[in-house]
């Protein structure tokens, strides 16, 4: 990160080592002050993302998905305690300060769920898009605006010059989310943290925005952490998927196989809870109980046990370890026993 042009330098490095891990998260534990006490929101989370790879991060609200992304971008609220390590391109993220931290944030761009709230309402679109280029990379205004217009065209906004002069409230939510994506890509990041980027949009816009994200990611050879509560969406755009429950990683597998042949009962429940137009509606089932945060979950046993239809006494004797199975990993003591029986088709 000492190179004077970190963006260019990083891009070539990635080209030479396509399979080396770009981001490594190891034994990440995060505690936040909640009502006066430090409460655990992430527990022992480990995964990595290779250059150009898309990793899905799936779970219910409160499972720690967004906290994981925030921890990666060092955006945790004040008072947060972090254990474990996050390494980006081999460098420890936790020790970055000042200019290094800001350059790192330029390489790891973030897209948020609600573009309306996440774009300053009183500054023009042009201002929003070019701000990082102009302040962090000293790109002159006219050049920055030209690049912004070009990038807007890439996300399907043709009249970019006019858009740059507009204010956020003059744009629709879908348009604004495309602006956010374009702005994120302007600084030529290598990793994109997409925190439910389509959840706040209506259905037709969702598909458009997903398609744009998918294409551009390929085009720029961009790694992505895609956060969603939708297993199927993750399966469609990601190479691998990680499933989180109560601040813990419960399953990790190639996206396609995880969806069709889950190794963890929670993943199976998530898959079954989603309506599937191709199948009959009777399969649609809610997961009993409510999602829990890490600090609310039962300690010293499988966190999902209280809601799990397959739970046995063994599940309550200790926290299950992640076990390797079928090219993936599962945090379930009965994983090999249940193998093949949790799939969508085998459900009934």
């Amino acid at each position, binding site marked *: 990160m000492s190179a004077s042009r970190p963006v260019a330098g990083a891009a070539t490095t990635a080209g030479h080592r396509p399979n080396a891990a770009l981001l490594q998260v190891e034994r990440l534990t995060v505690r936040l002050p909640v009502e006066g006490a430090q409460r655990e929101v992430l527990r022992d989370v480990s995964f990595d993302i290779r250059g150009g790879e898309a990793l899905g991060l799936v779970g219910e609200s409160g499972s720690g998905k967004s906290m994981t992304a925030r921890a990666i971008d060092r955006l945790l609220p004040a008072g947060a305690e972090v254990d474990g390590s996050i390494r980006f391109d081999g460098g420890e993220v936790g020790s970055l300060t000042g200019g290094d*931290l800001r350059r790192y944030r330029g390489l790891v761009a*973030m897209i948020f769920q609600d573009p309306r709230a996440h774009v*300053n309402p*009183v500054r023009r679109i042009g201002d929003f898009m070019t701000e990082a280029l102009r*302040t*962090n990379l000293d790109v002159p205004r006219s050049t920055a605006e030209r690049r912004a217009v070009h990038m807007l065209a890439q996300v399907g906004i043709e009249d970019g010059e006019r858009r740059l002069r507009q204010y956020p409230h003059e744009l629709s939510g879908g348009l604004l989310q495309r602006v956010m994506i374009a702005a994120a890509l302007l*600084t030529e990041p290598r990793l994109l943290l997409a925190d439910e980027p389509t959840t706040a949009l209506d259905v037709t816009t969702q598909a458009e925005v997903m398609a744009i994200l998918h294409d551009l990611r390929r085009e720029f050879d961009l790694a992505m952490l895609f956060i969603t509560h939708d297993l199927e969406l993750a399966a469609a755009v990601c190479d691998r998927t990680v499933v989180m429950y109560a601040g813990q990683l419960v399953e990790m597998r190639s996206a396609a196989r995880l969806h069709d042949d889950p190794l963890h009962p929670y993943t199976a429940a998530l898959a079954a809870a989603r309506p599937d137009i191709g199948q009959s509606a009777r399969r649609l089932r809610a997961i009993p109980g409510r999602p829990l945060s890490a600090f609310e979950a039962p300690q010293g046993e499988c966190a999902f046990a209280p809601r799990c239809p397959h739970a046995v006494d063994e599940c309550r004797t200790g926290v299950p370890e992640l076990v390797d199975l079928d090219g993936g990993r599962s945090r379930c003591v009965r994983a090999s026993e249940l193998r093949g029986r949790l799939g969508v088709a085998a459900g009934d």
Partner: protein
Amino acid sequence: MGGQLGGNRLELINWSFLLRRLAMLLASLLVASFVIFAAMYLAPGNPIAALSGGRSLPPSSIKVLEERYHLNEPFLVQYWYWLKNALHGNLGISITLRENVSTLIASRIWTTAGLVLYASVIILVVGIGLGVLSGLRHGALDTSTLVVTAVSAAIPAFVAAIVLILLFAVKLGWFPALGNGTSFLSNLQHLTLPAFALAVSSLAIVARVTRASVREESNREHVQTAVSRGIPTRQVIWRHILRNAAIPVTTISGITIASLIAVAAVVEVAFSLNGLGAFLVGSAQSKDLAVVQGISLVLVTAFVVVNVLVDILYAVLDPRVSLGSRAA
């Protein structure tokens, strides 16, 4: 909507909003002038006696006066003549001082204007400064600002006046206790305590609103976006937190500064300053109605104009404003 091409400054202004505000300004002034005139018209007392200073006049002189001042015309006609004269700077004659009201006003207006301006500068610099500092950092400074402003917001100008006189004029002798100065510098010295007395409670209110706005804006999601993009902290504070907090801060500063125009009377009386407000109060006591009318008209105009300027500034600062007045 300002969606036209080109980035010129004209685009910043919403013309229909501006025109509507200006129309409102004229309507306000018209109604206010009508109220002021009607109040004096309804006031008990014989206008001829007022004009003659209480002496009994021969019928011929009364007739002359009646004609000159249109006293026998219908009410609305009299209002019209009065308004026309007022627009030409003719506000009538003071019965107690036997002098032109405009001249009397002109000789006192700078004391009041100076006092209000001085106090405004104090409010803007100290109030906003304190609010921003305590809004951006938590801890001892923030807590003490909260406590001190809670108390000083409740200190009326005339109470502040006696305390300041006691401390800085009587005990310490740094500033004169009463009266106007003779040169610019001595005027400034004479106006310092009055300006602080006038500013104290408004300053506290502005500081509290500023603090709350800065806090609120700091927690906005778009500020997090800026941080996540690696924008330096100083820029995040200036371009996102303070820029956005400027909208409510402008409104509250404008409203409080406008209110000083009337409160200045209290401070002028407390410090025996020769300003418009003190003159107004004296004339109200002696029922010198032409003076009361004239000064009320000037003060109301100033008050309304400042309020409209605040509204326009608000619209310039907040692109989302397209209709109506500022949000309550």
